[in-house]
């Protein structure tokens, strides 16, 4: 009887099983189209280092910006870049990247530009820390002025704090500029 029911059911159903728009749902953990948030990226290069097919590379415009480049035609969607990005700037969204007609998949190259900022102390151009990282670093009420420092000046400031702790009167000689 069950078989008859199945046959009858099959006869009454339309010939197609799914309309093109009605496709099986993509699982939420699917690693699809990649997005990059320039505002969170520190241009540390970890993503390019872990990417086996070398889908990510950087170019520089010295003193002005660093560009993060991604070519989807070289990506194996392993998700290692997302896993290893310390600032969570990369995210592989759960949607299926669309096909393209352009040569070599050129329409699927991503570029995001990270603008350099001058250091508020020494003026050297550097990649600013993402706002979230700054909040985490300076939440403890350390010197707000350090927010705009380049990495070298941050190091200088940290060692200056250390030196103050050792000198009895708390005075620290203004060391001027660090060596570059």
């Amino acid at each position, binding site marked *: 009887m069950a078989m008859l029911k199945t046959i009858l059911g099959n006869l009454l159903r339309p*010939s*197609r*099983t*799914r*309309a*093109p728009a009605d*496709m*099986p749902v*993509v699982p939420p953990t*699917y690693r*699809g189209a990649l997005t990059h948030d320039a505002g969170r990226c520190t241009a540390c290069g970890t993503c390019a280092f872990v990417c*086996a*097919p*070398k889908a990510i590379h950087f170019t520089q415009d010295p003193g002005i910006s660093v560009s993060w480049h991604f*070519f*989807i*035609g*070289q*990506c*194996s*969607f392993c998700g290692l870049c997302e896993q290893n990005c310390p600032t969570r700037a990369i995210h592989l969204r759960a949607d*299926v*990247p*669309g*096909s*393209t*007609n*352009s*040569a*070599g*998949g050129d329409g*699927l190259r991503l570029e995001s530009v990270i603008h350099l900022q001058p250091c508020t102390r020494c003026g050297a151009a550097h990649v600013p820390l993402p706002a979230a990282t700054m909040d985490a670093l300076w939440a403890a009420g350390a010197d707000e002025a350090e927010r705009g420092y380049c990495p070298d000046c941050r190091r200088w400031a940290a060692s200056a704090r250390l030196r103050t702790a050792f000198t009895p009167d708390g005075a620290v000689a203004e060391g001027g500029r660090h060596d570059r």
Partner: protein
Amino acid sequence: MNLIERVIAISRRRSPWICRLNAGSCNGCDIEITPLLSPRYDAEQLGIELHGTPKHADIVLISGTLTLRSRQAILDIYDQVPNPKAVVALGSCPSSGNVFAGSPLVLSCSLDTVVPVDVWVPGCPPRPQAILDGIARAAKLLEDGATKSQLAKSRLAGSQPESRCGRPS
């Protein structure tokens, strides 16, 4: 375009026959074609039918890394596909070599340097619905007479692209 040609063009879109060419794939992309033909993704609702021989095909799906040996095979099989024809490249391998790029026997270059590619489907492997979308796009191009081989033919600019991809240095 007269009425008969128009009807032929529409039928081309409504019933594209495909053939599959594994140019050195890891089999991931080919495995994604199987569910595409199954009722779950149901490619036949678009009139897509898989054929074993390139001589019956309108659209060639090429998957996988291009290798020194598969290069000639791709050219031979592409020549056997009757005009008009479209090529759909599946996955990352044909566009760059993916993780295999730089291996001694792998041509680390785009499939475009071997045969004219009309649609690139990104993914590694692409999801079946992405492949279905790619085939539908290629079928539309066939109807419009806008595939690269059709355009080259109408321009009479040499049907075979000059192959620029040699042995990687």
